[in-house]
C-alpha cells in the first residue's frame, strides 16, 4: 500500500527523572505525518512540544525516560543502534533550532558550522566542494556568501535564524523540524524567515514540522496542526480549521490571543486566559485544562479524557467541544467572513 509515514509518534511518554521526583513532560502523544506534508504543533511553554521533537533525533537528556515509539520512515529511533542514529541525525532528519546567540558556537565562524555536518556525513568531499555547498546554502536562504566568514555575534537575529535554516538543510534531510524559528524576531523579519522556510520546503519536497506558540504562523505555513497542552495533544486537524473553528476551548483561547487587524471581532481587547498551565509534576485527574477552562462542567474534573474523532481528520480531547467559529462579540458589527490569512 503506501509507504510508511515519514514521521510517527505512537503513544509516546517522556518523563524527566529529577531529584524531587518524576516530571512527565509528554503524556501519551500519537501523531502521524505522511511524507511531503507539513504539521504545526502549537502550545504554550511547558506543553512538551520541544521535548517531543527532540526525541526524533534522540536528543533528550539522560535524565529523560522515553516509552512508546518514535518512528522515522518506519524505523524506531529509540531502538536504533548508535551508528544508525548518527546517520539519521541531520542526513535523515534535522532540526532548525532557535537561532538566538546560544544556538551557534560563539567562537566559530558560521560558515564552518554549516560545513561541519557535511564533513561528518560525506567525509570524502574535498574542502572546495564543501565550501561550494556552503555558499549555495547561504544563497538559498538569502544571505551573501561572504557572510559565511562572520562570527555569530556579528549577525542580526534574522540572519542568524537563516544560518540555522541553511545549516539544517546542509545534508539534504527528508524531514525538517523547526523549533520556534520565529520567536524572538520582530514581525518583519519573522515574515522573511518564514517565507524562506516555506519556499525551501516546497522546492525540496521536505516533510516539515513547525513548532510555535503563534497560531497564525502555523496556519499560514502548515497544512495540518496539532495543539498540545500539558504534555498531551488536545486537538488535531487541518490548520485552517484548527485556527478558525477550534473545537477545544484551549485552542480557541490560543487562537483568540492573536487578534487579526481588520477583523471587527477583535476590536475589543483580546481575551487572554488567566492562570498558568499545571505543573507537569502535578498528576491531574480528569481533563488537565479544566481548572482554566471557561466552559468547564463538573464532570470535566472527575472523568479522564482522550482524543476522539468529531469529524473526518479532526480529533479533539474534549467532552464538550465547541462548534462553529468564535462567537461574535456583543457589540461587534456584522462579522465579515474571515479568510484565514495569518500574520
Amino acid at each position: 500500500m503506501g509507504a510508511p509515514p515519514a514521521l510517527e509518534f505512537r503513544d509516546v511518554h517522556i518523563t524527566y527523572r529529577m531529584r524531587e521526583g518524576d516530571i512527565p513532560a509528554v503524556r501519551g502523544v500519537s501523531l502521524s505525518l505522511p511524507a511531503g506534508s507539513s504539521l504545526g504543533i502549537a502550545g504554550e511553554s511547558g506543553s512538551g512540544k520541544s521535548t517531543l521533537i527532540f526525541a526524533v533525533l534522540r536528543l533528550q537528556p539522560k535524565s529523560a525516560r522515553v516509552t512508546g515509539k518514535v518512528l522515522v520512515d518506519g524505523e524506531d529511533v529509540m531502538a536504533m543502534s548508535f551508528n544508525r542514529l548518527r546517520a539519521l541525525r541531520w542526513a535523515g532528519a534535522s532540526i532548525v533550532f532557535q537561532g538566538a546567540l546560544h544556538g551557534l558556537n560563539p567562537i566559530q565562524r558560521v560558515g564552518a558550522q554549516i560545513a561541519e555536518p557535511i564533513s561528518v556525513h560525506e567525509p570524502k568531499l574535498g574542502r572546495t566542494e564543501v565550501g561550494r555547498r556552503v555558499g549555495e546554502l547561504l544563497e538559498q536562504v538569502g544571505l551573501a556568501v561572504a557572510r559565511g566568514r562572520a562570527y555569530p555575534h556579528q549577525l542580526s537575529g534574522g540572519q542568524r535564524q537563516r544560518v540555522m535554516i541553511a545549516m539544517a538543510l546542509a545534508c539534504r534531510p527528508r524531514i525538517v523540524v523547526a523549533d520556534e524559528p520565529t520567536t524572538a524576531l520582530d514581525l518583519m523579519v519573522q515574515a522573511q524567515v518564514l517565507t524562506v522556510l516555506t519556499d525551501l520546503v516546497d522546492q525540496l519536497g521536505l516533510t516539515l514540522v513547525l513548532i510555535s506558540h503563534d497560531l497564525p504562523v502555523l496556519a499560514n505555513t502548515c497544512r495540518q496542526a496539532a495543539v498540545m497542552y500539558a504534555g498531551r495533544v488536545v486537538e488535531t486537524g487541518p490548520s485552517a480549521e484548527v485556527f478558525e473553528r477550534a473545537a477545544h476551548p484551549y485552542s480557541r483561547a490560543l487562537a483568540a490571543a492573536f487578534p487579526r487587524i481588520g477583523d471587527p471581532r477583535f476590536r475589543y481587547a483580546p481575551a487572554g486566559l488567566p492562570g498558568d498551565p499545571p505543573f507537569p509534576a502535578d498528576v491531574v485527574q480528569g481533563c488537565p485544562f479544566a481548572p482554566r477552562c471557561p466552559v468547564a462542567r463538573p464532570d470535566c474534573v472527575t472523568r479522564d479524557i482522550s482524543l476522539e474523532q468529531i469529524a473526518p481528520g479532526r480529533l479533539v480531547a474534549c467532552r464538550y467541544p465547541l462548534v462553529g467559529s468564535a462567537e461574535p462579540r456583543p457589540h461587534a458589527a456584522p462579522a465579515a467572513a474571515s479568510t484565514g490569512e495569518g500574520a
Partner: protein
Amino acid sequence: MGPGTRYALRSIASGLGTLLFVVVFNFFLFRLLPGDPIGLYTRGRNVPPEQIAALRAELYKPIAEQFLTYLANPLATTINSARYNRPVWELICERIGATLLLVGTATVLAAVIGTWIGIRAAWKRGQRFDKVSTAVTLTLYAMPEFWLGMLLLITFGVGIGVLPGMFPIGGIRTPGVDASSLAGWLDIVWHMVLPVTTLMFTYLAEYALVMRASLIDEMGQDYLTVARAKGLLDRTVRRRHAVPNAILPTITLIFLNLGFVVSGAITVETVFSWPGLGLLSYEALRGPDIALLQAIFLLFSFGVIVANIIADLLYAVLDPRVRS
C-alpha cells in the same frame, strides 16, 4: 588601526598606568608607615656609624627630592642590601633564574594536568571520577603549600620507616657536580622533583576546579545540543565545541595567577632551600632588609602587571567577541 590593535594598545597603556601607581605606592609604603625609619633599616644589623649618618642625611631630605631619587632607580641597582652588602639588583638577578625554572615548570605541569582533570570531571559529572577528583582537588586547595612540601620532604627526602630518602632535601645542585655537563643538568632535575611536585599540586587544584565549573556552565548551552544533533560523536562535541569555549576563562586565570604564584614560591623555596627570589624574600624578612624587600615587592608587582597584560591580549586572540 583595527579594533584588535586598539584593544592591545589600551591594555598596554592601562598596564603602564598601573605600573606607575605601583612604583609610587611602593615609595610611600615604606615612608609613611609608623616607626623609626633608621631603626627599620638597621634593625638587628651592625651598621657602621658613617652609614647611619649617611642614611639619616638621606632620609631627612625633602620628600620630593627623595621621590625623584627613588624614581630614577626604583629597582635599587646601586643601593646595597643591608644584609649582603651587595647591590640589591645584583642579588635579584642572581636568583631570578631559579625561581622562574621552578615556578614555570610547576605551572606548565599544573595547567596541563589540572585542565585535563577539570574537563574529565565536568564531562562525567556526578560519576566516580568527578566525585573523587573534586574531593581531592578541594583538599589540595585547602592545603598550605609549605606543609605539603614538608610532608613530601620527610617522606621522600629524609625517608620514613622503611622508605629510604630518594630525593635531596634541599638546594638546587649537589656540590662538586659540574654544572654545565649533562650530569649537572640531571642533578638539577633531581633536585627539582620535590619542590616542583609540591607547587604543581598546589596550582593544579585551582585550575581543575575552575575548569570544571567553567565546562559545566558551558555544557548547558544550546549549541552543544545542535552539535550532537548534527551527528557528531560525544567526544568530538566536547573537544571541538565545549572545551574551546570553556577553556577561555581558565586560560585567563592561569595567566592572571602567574602573577600571584609568588606566595607559593616564597614558602616552598624556603622549605626546600631553593636559591630563588622566594628564599631571598625569606632571608630579607629575617633581617629585615628593607631595601631588598622593597625592590622584590616592586618586581613581583611588575610581574603581575605583565601577566595581566598577556592575559588580556591572549583573551582577545582567542575570543573573537572581545575584539569588536
